[in-house]
């Protein structure tokens, strides 16, 4: 059987990939995708921990994260569309209306 730590290390790597994506990319859609990767890293950690502990709470938590992530993505994409209607771009570094 694969030890639990392997899963946790994998989820840590996924989480780091997501964080680097959010920090380094300028395209709002790719940032959104990176956030989804972070949330999936969370799910992996929850499911792995839950199955090793023999506790259903971890799996339940993963389901809740999935549902909420879907709701969040819906709202996020709507906001990105609203931005696109104004600026014809989804590049976050071009959003300078509110900076001085």
């Amino acid at each position, binding site marked *: 059987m694969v030890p639990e730590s392997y899963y*946790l290390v994998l989820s840590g790597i996924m989480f780091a990939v997501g964080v680097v994506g*959010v920090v380094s990319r300028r395209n709002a859609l790719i*940032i959104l995708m990176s956030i989804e990767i972070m949330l999936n890293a969370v799910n992996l*950690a929850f499911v792995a921990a839950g199955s090793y502990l023999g506790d259903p709470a971890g799996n339940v938590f993963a389901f*809740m*994260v999935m549902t909420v992530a879907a709701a969040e993505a819906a709202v996020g994409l709507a906001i990105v569309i*609203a931005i696109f209607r104004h600026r014809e771009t989804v590049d*976050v570094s071009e959003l300078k209306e509110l900076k001085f």
Partner: protein
Amino acid sequence: MDLQSILLSLKAIVPEMILTATGCLVLLYDLLIPEENRGVHAGISAVGVITALFSVLWFGSERIEAFSGMLAQDTFGSFFTVVVLVSLLLTLMLSRSYNDWEGIQKGEFYALLLFSSVGMLVMAKATDMMTIFLGLELLSIPIYVLVGFDRKRLSSVEGALKYFLLGAFATGFLLYGMALLYAATGATSLSGIAAFAGKENVFGNTLFLAGTALLFVGFGFKVSLVPFHMWTPDAYQGAPTPVTAFMSAGPKAAAFAAVIRVLVVAFPESHPFLLKGLWVVAALTMTVGNVSALVQDDVKRMLAYSSIAHAGYVLVGLVSGDRLGGQAAMYYLFVYSLMNIGAFAIVMLLSEGEERGYAIENFRGVGFRYPVLGALMTVFLVSLGGIPPTAGFVGKFYLFSAAVKKGLILLTVIGVLNSAASVYYYLRVVVYMYMLPERAEEVRPRPVGVGVALALFIATVGVIALGIFPKGLLSFAESSILSIFLS
């Protein structure tokens, strides 16, 4: 779960149920009425909120462990329910006129405010990481929409995008922290984490430490602590002004409620280690917030930075880590909601529309042309600056005296210096109002309707009355904090 315990659980979430029902009612009724009558939704929502407030008083606040330990109704939860509902009520009063002025009068606006408040109440009562997460998301998602509600205005949508991206990013951190804590302790409930920390040596447990750190990074984003505050000025400035006022009061109080409960219930043992970190964050938050606010010429943006600084003051209470500090932090959160919503209300009145901004120039000569507006703004600013006899002074006094009693002298000195520096930019507005000559083209304040007048009245009376007679609210805060210390 048998019927008895289900009914008891439902009793613990009566205010949430009332708000949800009101929100659904507003959405349905919105379909039936013509566009020009939509202001009536503010009234319907306000009735719902007042009913919810009465239900809190009616059902009392004896402790109920609801839904198998997912939620707990106790005095602590009731205190924050009152804070959130009062902020929501004031916001509703401001929103009606504002939405007419800006042409964004829609039913969804009120429904989203109500749903978001449900999330805040859940968060304040949550005793399990699952419910904290659910409450936080239920709070955040409607707020993302509300910030970008005026979607014809670029700054509103831009604020929403920035808030959304950083908020979702922060949620990732919070959740990963929860996942690691779960992997380390095998429990999702706060008391389960505390039980694990009581048995094992957590300082050698990397998973536990990393989980705790990530959890607090997530919370830090939500209550806008430095260095996780970058979204705050932009989101606050872009949002419709009543939403800004609400964001600085309700969600902040709810998130602090969750932080306090997590600190007290889940981490009683590892306190010294955590408190060192919070000490640094509190000092940074106060200083960065105040220094940035000093140079702002837009009053709305200035108040956004000042709200960062105020989160730092509240954090000083948490760093004290005892009953006195918690009590002072809770008192301050309540008072801060009143004075900040009041200040935002006046700022909102003295503008020629969101597009034109909220330049401090608009305040020139206001004190003499519109004496009532000038006097009220002065009261709110004096209270924000922490000058007696206002409630802001009493709040800061208790926060800093709790810190001194704990021997946090250096932090108190930093706090008091910050508070003194903040007086500069608050009184700068007063100087503009009373001491500088008027401009040729003056800004006419928008007509004050019944709702706005009532909101200003409640906020002013609250700020002054709680400043002169703080005992009642303080003892409510004390019994609240005791209710989680002793549970």
